[in-house]
């Protein structure tokens, strides 16, 4: 979320899910919302029923296109060009919000200049979207009284992910769709507590509440709070750790509640990394591809067995309460982590109290200093919530942006090309994602009889035209190979994917899409390009 943070000073959904119903226009790009955020999608459908115009930009004919006023089927990896072209139209037709631009943004002149080349006609061959549709989309979005943008990994998991996020932000700024209900820039978080993990400082560059590790006064503040000297050196992002392991710079790793050996793009490489470690600790509720590589595996409690809080996409902090006891000797992650912490610190081991831990966070991050377990018993709160009597914040940036000068920053977004595009050797463009009936690496959903019954196997979606070309019938087993690996799985011949593009869900370990995907990195936020790579298909 580095992109948004840079522009607005904060990286999270600017608005609330409930507000979606009030939007007059919606732009959903790089998000298969009905399958990945089903309940947020309900609000989108509600908005459409209430008369909102819905623009869906997605290479795949995702279910939401059924409800769309306009569906832009752009080629994978061309999001920012599409968005730039929309903005080109907005300026050309004078649809921008001049007041907002003057009063609440900076860097417009240079930015506007950069858009000149991105005419719809220039974008058409690149994106595959007819120029006229780009114009339509621009008008629908810009003319709406309030319009929200909703996106997910389809925007970020690219080498130009940060650019895409900037482009999205630019579009909202250009039309003044920030700081009011039913508008904004809204990244939909893929996992239950992605927002929380970021908020809590599980990032190499910031402490809890996005306080920078390389800022001396922040460092002082936390040294005081934790009573230990702290490093001001920005740490390694996950995506660089693999390389560091292989190079032997990283010797020991502690992983909990994740399964990177299956979810990382180019898993061969990732596995190689873990294998070259001197010591690997993995903490999880099941054996996974990652625990298989561990030296120590620690059994932990599921969400139904622990006390704590989750923070969902819309910055809403909510209680998690235990319903049952953990099986066997499994323990709450908090207890385990805290014991290791205390013993490394040479302190006496005590049983941690989640409420006390949360209070400690609240004391260190002004953004939630008004939030307490006491309040969370009664309600759920959206940060910022600076004081005990503060009702929480449904949408951000009403008055100002939390940056020096309080203004939002326009960013020039040049055209970047995906690191690996189809060629004669690997003629198909593979994009990956989730399906409704499974979640992430399937460790949970594939253990649910019903879900496993409706979605038992991996598959590769391929357009009828291509199937015909390759002489493949629906259900045929095929070998799919990229420069990084090969997997075997059945085909699903479907018009959901356009010609020359194929799709594989990454839930299935027996045919792991991430054996194929590329780990090329976005230069700024170091995200891996999971959404675009080139593959070959053989019968």
């Amino acid at each position: 979320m580095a992109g948004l943070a840079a522009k607005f000073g904060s990286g999270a959904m600017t608005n609330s899910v409930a507000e979606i119903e009030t939007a007059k226009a919606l732009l959903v790009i790089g998000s298969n919302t009905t399958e990945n955020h089903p309940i947020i999608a309900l609000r989108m459908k509600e908005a459409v029923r209430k008369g909102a115009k819905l623009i869906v930009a997605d290479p795949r004919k995702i279910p939401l296109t059924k409800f769309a006023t306009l569906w832009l089927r752009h080629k994978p990896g061309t999001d920012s060009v599409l968005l730039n072209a929309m903005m080109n139209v907005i300026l050309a037709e004078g649809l921008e919000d001049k007041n907002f631009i003057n009063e609440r943004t900076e860097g417009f002149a240079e930015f506007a200049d950069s858009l000149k080349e991105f005419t719809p006609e220039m974008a058409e061959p690149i994106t595959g979207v007819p120029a006229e549709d780009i114009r339509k989309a621009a008008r629908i979005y810009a003319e709406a009284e309030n319009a929200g943008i909703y996106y997910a990994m389809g925007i970020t998991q690219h080498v130009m992910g940060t650019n895409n996020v900037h482009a999205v932000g630019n579009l909202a700024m250009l039309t003044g769709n920030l700081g009011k209900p039913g508008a904004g820039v809204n990244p939909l978080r893929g996992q239950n507590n992605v927002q929380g993990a970021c908020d809590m400082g599980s990032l190499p560059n910031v402490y809890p509440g996005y306080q920078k590790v390389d800022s001396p006064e922040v460092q002082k503040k936390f040294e005081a709070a934790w009573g230990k000297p702290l490093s001001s050196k920005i740490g390694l992002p996950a995506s660089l750790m693999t390389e560091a392991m292989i190079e032997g710079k990283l010797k020991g790793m502690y992983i909990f509640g994740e399964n990177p050996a299956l979810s990382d793009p180019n898993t061969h490489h990732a596995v190689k990394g873990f294998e070259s470690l001197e010591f690997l600790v993995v903490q999880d509720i099941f054996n996974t591809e990652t625990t298989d590589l561990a030296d120590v595996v620690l059994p932990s409690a599921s969400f139904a067995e622990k006390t704590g809080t989750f923070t969902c996409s819309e910055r809403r902090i909510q209680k998690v309460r235990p319903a049952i006891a953990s099986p066997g000797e499994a323990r709450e992650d908090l207890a385990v982590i805290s014991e290791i912490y205390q013993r490394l610190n040479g302190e006496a081991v005590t049983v941690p109290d989640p409420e006390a831990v949360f209070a400690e966070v609240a004391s260190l991050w002004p953004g939630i200093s008004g939030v307490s377990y006491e309040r969370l018993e009664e309600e759920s709160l959206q940060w910022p919530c600076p004081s005990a009597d503060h009702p929480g914040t449904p949408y951000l940036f009403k008055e100002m942006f939390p940056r020096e000068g309080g203004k939002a920053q326009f960013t020039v977004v040049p055209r970047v090309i995906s690191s690996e595009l189809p060629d004669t050797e690997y003629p198909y463009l593979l994009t990956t994602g989730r399906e409704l009936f499974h979640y992430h690496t399937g460790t949970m959903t594939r253990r649910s009889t019903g879900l496993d019954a409706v979605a038992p196997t991996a598959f590769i979606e391929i357009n009828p035209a291509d199937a015909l070309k390759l002489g493949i019938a629906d259900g045929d087993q095929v070998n799919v190979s990229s420069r990084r690996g090969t997997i075997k799985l059945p085909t699903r011949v479907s018009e959901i994917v356009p010609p020359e593009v194929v799709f594989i869900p990454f839930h299935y370990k027996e045919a792991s899409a991430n054996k194929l995907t590329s780990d090329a990195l976005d230069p700024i936020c170091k995200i891996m390009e999971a959404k675009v790579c080139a593959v070959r298909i053989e019968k």
Partner: protein
Amino acid sequence: MITLTIDNKTVEVVKGSTVLEAAKKLKIDIPTLCYDSRMKPHGACRLCIVEIEGMRRPVTSCTTPAEQGMAVTTTSAHLERLRKTTVELLLSDHPNDCMVCIRAGSCTLQELAYKYGIRENRFGGAMRDHNRVDENPFIMREQNKCVLCGLCVRVCEEVQGVSAIGYAGRGFEAKICSPFEHDLNCEFCGQCVSVCPTGALSAKMWAGHPRHEGVELTETTCTYCGCGCNITLHSLGNEITRVSSRTDNHNRGWLCVKGRFGYEFINSEDRLTTPLIRREKGGALEPASWEEAISLVVDKFSAIKEKHGADALGGLASARCTNEENYMFQKLFRSAIGTNNVDHCARY
């Protein structure tokens, strides 16, 4: 705003409100079977009928717009007689097998039968025979228990936008089914199950588990995607027996197939129940005590820090786990170990 009186009590409501909404505002209870504030009114069950001054006959309060100066009566001998007959008619075409019905105790029809004290039925006669078994993995459909309230049809169309089911046929034989009466093949969100007032729709995985006796309810937050839905875990001892969601929360009681039906992993046989240690490289993971496991971790981390410096250690936190755990984890790395090599998989 509009002012009207209901049972001689005055109430003010916004224009466009229905008489039923006005009555709810006064906490006046009017029986309903086909009403749900989250969907369009239907006016089919005829239980919410009220008398309104100046209107020839009773009208359904769920469909009648409140108007300035209306005088409404929600109960009278006549209304109660009509309501009783309606319930009695419904029961005359209902299996009445509450003893073994999964909805017993949370069934609106059962409550109404009790309220109107219907023991024997004046209208015994032919009953529908919609006994088709639906083989889908999630949703149990017992159409003989269907009262045609239409809530499932409306939720599937108005809320889920799928319209996987609809009405078919007409008159006494009218029923609700998927096109050409095939097995359900939908998103299996289970919204329909959550709104069904009788045992016509339930979850197959509920079967056999206690309905209420000994079941504890726990309010918590869903563990799947970033929507953050509020859910209620039903548990008996250490087993999760059902997931539901209250209608007054921010997700309005709506859940997806994973949130509603994807809870079996919690009680899975595969759960890790004891620490495991790989005692020599290439060897197998073997059970160990917590003491042994944690000591090993602490020693190893200390040793590596000793030998290669704090930055030779790194941690991956979890977007699946709680804020408290994530906080503690990064604190562990930053202060106890002394490196900022901590990240999580948010980006994937």
